[in-house]
């Protein structure tokens, strides 16, 4: 597939935004349970603004993918069958929850709600946060399922696809949260850093698993099934167009094998070992902001490469019909 940059930015930006919101809410629950001094409302409010900025950035990027963005509202109608439509509904819903969550914190509105036993000493923000978390995970699933539901794109058609989207989002969100807590001089820096490392390690295992899976993948379609002629030696001689077509532009990444391989190694290095090393250093040198900033920025750049590779690696069966001019 041809990697569309609008979608690369959409998925990486909203992933980080979702992860950051998860980190903020995890921090709120953690301080409550562990009796660590409560963070100020402003801590959560500004954090929510940061998350909203990323989500909005992703949303804007997604519009560049559409031929007719002015009709985008129509894409919320087919939620019964289309994962894309579901994502279109859940993304603004999640943004709304982050907005409410941030606003409540900003104005310090947190009336205690004692009725729920499950959440000891929980306030309204906890309830809003939990709804936020649910929409957040729903959004991860929708995003991943857009790709995983296409069964003949065999590289994507696996539960590992939504799992990777989720773990990458959370890992980059916690990396960003580490930078944020550092800037805010919050005692939660160690908490954020540790979890950023843990989620990055998880993502390493699941992405590694999908790389191995795709390496061994046998494609079900071949030229014999594509044109229905039973022969081992079939060669295309003409594709019916000399200057290429939508089919040749949309479904091939168009880069050399060398470039493709390099992107794989770039993302394998930038997403996993580099941030893990920087964050581990940061755990012992908590005063060095640069370590945390570098960890987040490099991991985010790595994720852009990862997403490029994710698209480029998928071989669409239609390519069988477009092998030679």
């Amino acid at each position, binding site marked *: *597939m041809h990697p569309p940059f609008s979608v690369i930015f959409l998925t990486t930006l909203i992933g980080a935004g979702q992860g950051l919101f998860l980190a903020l809410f995890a921090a709120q629950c953690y301080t409550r349970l562990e009796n660590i001094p409560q963070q100020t409302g402003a801590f959560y409010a500004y954090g929510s603004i940061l998350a909203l900025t990323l989500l909005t950035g992703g949303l804007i990027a997604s519009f560049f*993918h*559409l*031929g*007719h*963005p002015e*009709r*985008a509202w*129509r*894409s*919320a*109608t*087919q939620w019964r*069958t*289309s*994962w*894309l*439509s579901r994502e*279109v509904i859940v993304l603004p819903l999640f943004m709304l929850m982050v907005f409410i969550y941030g606003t409540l914190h900003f104005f310090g509105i947190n009336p205690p709600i004692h009725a729920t036993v499950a959440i000891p000493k929980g306030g309204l923000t906890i309830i809003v946060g939990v709804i936020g978390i649910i929409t957040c995970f729903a959004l991860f699933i929708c995003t991943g399922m*857009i790709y995983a*539901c*296409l*069964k*003949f*794109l065999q590289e994507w058609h696996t539960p590992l696809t939504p799992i990777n989207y989720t773990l990458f989002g959370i890992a980059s969100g916690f990396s960003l949260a580490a930078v944020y807590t550092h800037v805010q001089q919050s005692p939660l820096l160690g908490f954020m850093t540790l979890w950023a490392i843990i989620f990055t390690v998880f993502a390493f295992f699941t992405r590694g698993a999908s790389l191995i899976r795709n390496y061994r993948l046998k494609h*079900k*379609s071949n*030229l014999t*099934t*594509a*044109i*229905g*002629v039973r*022969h081992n*030696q*079939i*060669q*295309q*001689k*003409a*594709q*019916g*167009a*000399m*200057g*290429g*077509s*939508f*089919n040749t532009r*949309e*479904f091939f990444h168009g880069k050399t094998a060398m470039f493709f391989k390099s992107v794989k190694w770039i993302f394998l290095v930038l997403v996993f070992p580099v941030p893990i090393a920087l964050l581990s250093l940061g755990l012992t040198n908590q005063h060095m902001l640069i370590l945390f900033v570098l960890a987040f920025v490099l991991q985010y750049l790595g994720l852009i490469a990862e997403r490029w590779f994710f698209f480029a690696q998928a071989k*669409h*069966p*239609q*390519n069988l*019909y*477009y092998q030679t001019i």
Partner: protein
Amino acid sequence: MTQLALVIDLNVCVGCHACVTSCKQWNTSGSAGTMCDDNPYAAEPTGTFFNRVQTFEVGTFPDTETVHFPKSCLHCEDPPCVPVCPTGASYKRKEDGIVLVDYDKCIGCGYCSWACPYGARELDEHEKVMKKCTLCVDRIYDKDLPEQERKPACVMSCPTSARLFGDVHDPDSEVSVAIREKGGYALMPEWGTLPANHYLPRQKTKLHIHDDKLTRVDNPLKKEGRLSTDEDGPFLEDVTTW
């Protein structure tokens, strides 16, 4: 239930591209707007087509065969391109099974083209909406056309009659009979899309001549002409005069 479809006979298709040009001509002049066509006479001609004829070579030289292969939307009975569409612009008609795109609803997200394993959908790069074969839905029901012309443009134009059009759910239709009797098959059956369009395989007409047809074993004399008593061997007389 009706399911209109094309049946394409690879046995007679000569790869002349008449269906491609007549399709483009009909559909680019229709009410749905033009199909883009960039640099048509320059080095890199490109544009939107509903139908393309591709060519494949089967076998290794010198033992090869050329297969011309027209390809358009197959109007799948279980079309994977339809449920993924977020706007409902892509739909399959209940009454005749034609898969269509509503160009006024389509947002041009391209997701349906990812979901078609055959590459039958092409995004019009000028109008920014998804386009594909309509089975000439604006011809086949047009009462202003004479009855015999109410067929897709490609079917009308094919000089070798390689393209048949009809209802594949009616067992007695021309297309169903052709599929049944000439071994019609569907493309990429592994994905369960149940394409309505079928292809008829190439068939070679072969004359089988066996050795016993070349030598007349029923002629014990191994010779034409009058019987001669000079020959050795069993003669009719040997038996009868005995």
